[in-house]
């Protein structure tokens, strides 16, 4: 690379100035174009990760304080019962949210793929929740799940007096309400990706399998679903990051209640940093979140990049 720029920088009467300029430009253009976003990412992401790490090892309370107290804030963090609730909730929520959304999305995609009528209309309807913000979803579901206003009251007024659906009022069940709302919002999105994947599968493969005498469920289970692997990966990565950043949905739906039972690491971090004047603990929780994400993303990136280099 550097040997291309050398003759030009020598500056002694270049024989073909225009060519040399365009070569130089072609050489530098990608860097110039990428520089702003590279700088933005470098400062906006990596510098602040470093800053947060520093704050998490300082005694910062209301404002940042640049001293060093070692792992004291981490000890404090892990001694906070609320943080334990948040971590358990994150894993519970992520596991259920991913499993249910993927299962339902795949099922809906397969059903829609059967050349049914009005597919376009149905597809739009299923995809609509994705157009809403989590605040709207959260508020709407807050009312629907409220036993005195929503589903429970409706079913009871139909005559099923003993019907009970009061999960949102019960601290040990409220987290599942958040799963319900999040699944409702994201299933259509998972469906759309799977549907695109299904459309990409060559019909002749299915025909061949049918000729061999395979039943339709068998064809899906053994041939089509394994072929959707790239779609699965996209869905898993996108949904995982939705679940880790799930902040607005929790605030709108339960506001971490009842009794702090639906606390998530993101809401915990916000509360400790900005409401409770414990910036050090907040930063420590942010670093813990980063490490959780890294534990998932790094192996994934590693395997993807390795496959990439093998593929070429």
């Amino acid at each position: 690379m550097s040997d291309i720029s050398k003759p030009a920088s020598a500056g002694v009467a270049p024989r073909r100035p225009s060519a040399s300029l365009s070569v130089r430009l072609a050489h530098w253009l990608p860097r110039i174009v990428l520089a702003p976003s590279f700088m933005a990412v470098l400062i906006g992401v990596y510098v602040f990760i470093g800053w947060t790490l520093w704050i998490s090892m300082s005694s910062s309370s209301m404002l940042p304080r640049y001293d060093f107290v070692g792992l004291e804030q981490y000890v404090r963090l892990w001694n906070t019962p609320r943080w334990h609730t948040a971590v358990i909730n994150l894993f519970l929520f992520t596991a259920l949210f991913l499993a249910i959304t993927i299962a339902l999305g795949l099922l809906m995609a397969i059903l829609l793929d059967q050349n049914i009528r009005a597919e376009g209309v149905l597809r739009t309807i299923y995809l609509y929740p994705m157009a809403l913000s989590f605040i709207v979803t959260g508020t709407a579901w807050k009312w629907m799940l409220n036993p005195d206003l929503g589903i429970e009251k409706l079913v009871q007024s139909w005559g099923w007096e003993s019907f009970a659906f009061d999960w949102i009022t019960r601290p040990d069940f409220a987290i599942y309400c958040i799963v319900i709302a999040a699944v409702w919002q994201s299933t259509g999105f998972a469906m759309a990706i799977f549907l695109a994947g299904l459309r990409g599968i060559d019909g002749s493969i299915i025909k061949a399998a049918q000729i061999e005498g395979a039943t339709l469920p068998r064809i899906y289970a053994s041939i089509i679903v394994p072929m959707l692997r790239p779609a699965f990966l996209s869905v898993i990565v996108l949904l995982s990051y939705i679940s880790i950043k799930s902040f607005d949905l929790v605030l709108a739906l339960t506001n971490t209640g009842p009794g702090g039972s639906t606390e998530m690491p993101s809401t915990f971090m916000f509360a400790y940093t900005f409401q409770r004047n414990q910036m050090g603990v907040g930063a420590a929780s942010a670093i813990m979140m980063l490490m959780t994400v890294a534990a998932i993303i790094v192996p994934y990136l590693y395997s993807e990049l390795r496959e990439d280099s093998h593929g070429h």
Partner: protein
Amino acid sequence: MKLKSALFASVLALPVPAMAQDKGTIEVLHHWVSESEVAALNVVREKLAAEGFGWEDSAVGGMSGANATQALRTRLASGNPPGAMQFLGYEGQNWFAEGVVRDFADVATAEGWFDAIAPQVRDFVTKDGAFFAMPINMHRQNWVWANKKVFDEHGLTVPGTWDELIAMGPVLKEAGIVPLATGDEAWQIQLIFDALVADLHGPDFYRRSVVELDPEALSGPEMIDVFDTLRQVRGLVDDGFVGRDWAVATGMVASGEAAMQVHGDWAKGEFLAQGLTEGEDFLCFATPSETPSFLFLIDSFGAFKTSDAATTAAQDALAMATMDPQVQREFNMIKGSIPARSDVSVDGFDACAIKGFEDRAAAVESGAMLGALTHGFASQPQFAGVFGDVVGQFFVTDMTSQQAVEMLASGIANAM
């Protein structure tokens, strides 16, 4: 509703800056965005305009001021603080300790501000002879709001103790009325807890436990008794309390669906907005106790140090306007609170506010004037948050009182 109040706010904001740019403009960061709050703030704004100063409004609503605080931190960190900011709780003290807030001791001494406010309020706006925040209003947190018709129909009278209040529960429930309306948000529950701590075991216990955070007081038999009583209070609340806004709970009392709500005096506006009158439609009385206390919270304005002379002049004018007795009178009549200055006349205030004036005078006298824990006037936010966690969780689960006090003591120790 939102749109209406936003329009209302913008209409109010229009005429003022047009005529008042000459001497200087001050940017004020606050979290007052509701209709009555904006209207009340406009009293201060007009006073400033009359003095020839402009007002640049920076309202950051939401999260009980947490969003505004976040905005302030960002701006301080980038070296661009607003001219003035609304403070709640220990915020003023903490920012003053950071050395970023101006001291108005000279003008405060000249104008007699130190003596115009109650000694308990002084803890939040002064420090070692410095006067760093100008308190404009005072709310009382420990009120009970009751539906008069419901009380009359069931032959109920104003309870003298919490036991009497709790005993009203079965009668009301039988009649299909929710005895006590509240939401499950931690702060709404914590507000009841604050009242119980002060009411059941007196102001001294309140000071030892929630202000000084004495470990013995936090896990002693008195605190267990407070939680036992809170458990009984839970029995007065219906099951639809999840996610219920405080104003919705107030609406339930106004409509007679519920009999009572324990809440601060900002609830009064909800009754008045429906055209109801105190004494005829609704009742206001202090939370029942043999040693009645006055749990207060104040809003104050502090000014950030700046080298800009025009802003400094505007800050001085804002301080004078905020502490002006007439401004405080008009501001609080609209906002529903009472003036932070103790020397403003009660004439023209409504019956509940007048009761507030009287109770405050009595509480200052008897040492029962206490900062409200829920709103950050008892202990620093990191500790107040622990109380909120435990009380909120206790109320919605079947945790025992013993478990609650243990969680409280360990949580406070962990936050130290």
